[in-house]
């Protein structure tokens, strides 16, 4: 038994080292006073200070956040409508077209979708910029929100809605008062998923946006291509810290909730 225990621990240690090693090294380098990756010039926060002065980088971060919030709101709303149609309307006409068009972007390479959106914006005569960026992000994240919300609405018992309607509620009231509250966690996770995907996206944003609205991934990407600067290490580490903080808070929240549940029981 100890043999397999050892094998298990080794596999786990190797896996986590592979996953976290590069990220930790990156975070370490952001505090390196030297510009060279291989030379440790002592602890320094100079790259973080340089970041504070970099108006272009901060502006890109703001555009990314704004586009992510807006597109995630649109994607969640549209995804909810789509999920309701797919789970509650039965076999309506052109349902398979609807279903296929919603799921196709999930398997499509981003470059193809970006290309399609770009040629559409050109043909529609739309000036590329913040608006087209939000439209493009809402379009590709909407597929993901739909998948999450379809799963949530499927697991919600239709008998509850029927009961509410038998008791005199309209279909809309039954939906808002019965289905929506139980789907609330799924709505939150759909929103967060869309938000994260939008924040992380480089390829579709590059096709969809114009000179006025450069996103943070586009900015980092062009910096990395021009030559590595430790400033990118600094902003990467800040992003990592935000993710770690969010994950920690989420873990605390769920822990708090489950202990509250055990207290009640």
């Amino acid at each position: 038994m100890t043999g397999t225990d050892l094998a298990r621990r080794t596999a786990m240690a190797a896996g986590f080292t592979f996953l976290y090693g590069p990220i930790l090294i990156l975070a370490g380098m952001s505090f390196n006073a030297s510009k060279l990756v291989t030379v440790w010039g002592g602890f320094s926060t100079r790259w973080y200070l340089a970041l504070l002065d970099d108006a272009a980088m901060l502006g890109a971060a703001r555009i990314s956040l704004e586009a992510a919030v807006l597109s995630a709101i649109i994607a969640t709303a549209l995804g909810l409508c789509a999920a309701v149609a797919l789970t509650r309307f039965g076999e309506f006409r052109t349902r398979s077209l609807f279903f296929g068009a919603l799921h196709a972007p999930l398997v499509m390479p981003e470059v193809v979708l970006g290309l399609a959106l770009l040629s559409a914006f050109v043909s529609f005569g739309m000036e590329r910029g913040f608006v087209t960026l939000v439209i493009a992000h809402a379009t590709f994240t909407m597929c993901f929100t739909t998948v999450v919300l379809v799963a949530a609405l499927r697991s919600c018992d239709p008998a509850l809605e029927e009961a509410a309607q038998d008791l005199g509620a309209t279909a809309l009231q039954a939906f808002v008062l019965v289905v929506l509250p139980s789907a609330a966690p799924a709505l939150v996770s759909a929103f967060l998923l869309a938000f994260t995907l939008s924040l992380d996206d480089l390829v579709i944003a590059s096709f969809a946006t114009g000179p006025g609205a450069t996103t943070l991934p586009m900015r980092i990407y062009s910096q990395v291509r021009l030559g590595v600067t430790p400033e990118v290490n600094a902003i990467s580490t800040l992003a990592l810290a935000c993710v770690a903080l969010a994950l920690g808070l989420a873990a605390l929240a769920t822990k708090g909730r489950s202990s509250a549940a055990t207290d009640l029981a």
Partner: protein
Amino acid sequence: MMRRKLNVGQRLVLGAPYLWIGLFFLAPMALIAKISLSRPAQARPPYEPVFSFGDGFSGLVKKLGSLTFEAYQSFGEDRLYLDSYLNSLAIAGVSTLLMLLVAYPFALAMARAPARVRPLLIGLAVAPFWTSFLIRVYAWIALLKDEGLINHALMALHVIDAPLSIYATNVAVVIGIVYSYLPFMLLPLYSALARQDPALREAAADLGASPAQVFWRVTLPLSRSGVFAGCLLVFIPAVGEFVIPDLLGGSETLMIGKTLWSDFFANRDWPSASAAAIILLALLIGPLLIAERARLRADGERS
């Protein structure tokens, strides 16, 4: 199947997402298909004929006559696209296999860990996935460069005398893909392995199977669905990958995402890029539809 008429409210609910995907997904894809049948032109946007609703029906018919399969024909003749495809398939295939080798022991170890620590382990394994994709690829540049940390460490330990050139090669691209897509492989494998009933393995062992036999004849066959799902989730996006080959690959790294990108932005040959996009789409979605149909048929036979 019963088709009932939708009422006004339902039409509104369905109409909103329908209008959106119609305008921003179906129409763009139709445009791509249409551009792929056009000729490159000097004017902007660089393709001909330009579709316009003002031409009326006769104009439309005339335009249809001027469509051309040139882009598709040149696709067969131009080695660049074909080579990019084959190379993308090869790189995605090698990466998928390697990832399976890396992820399987990892997933197995997590699935066999005590039940109370499993959610924590899964959380830790997925957490890097929530950090920016670009940041993770970027971290590997610092590791793989000629003057990077791996070469530095190996030379300091006197394992090698001259730096290994890994950065800007296909090897770096494979490493980048394996690293970036690992959670997609890990999760389906983990859920397939965690679902297995330990009693089956105990029964096999009781009947005289050695641990290796138990693995090959019980554990592995029972995790087939997880292996299949993981490979699919990794292989399909890896074929169309653009960022990793562009940042970690070199001039000899031909991948279709990169070729499409440069054709669209640098060469401005929209018809060829569109034709390649349509073919890529068919190549990726075709097998998926066949697999889905096979799954449905298998389900139908069982019930």
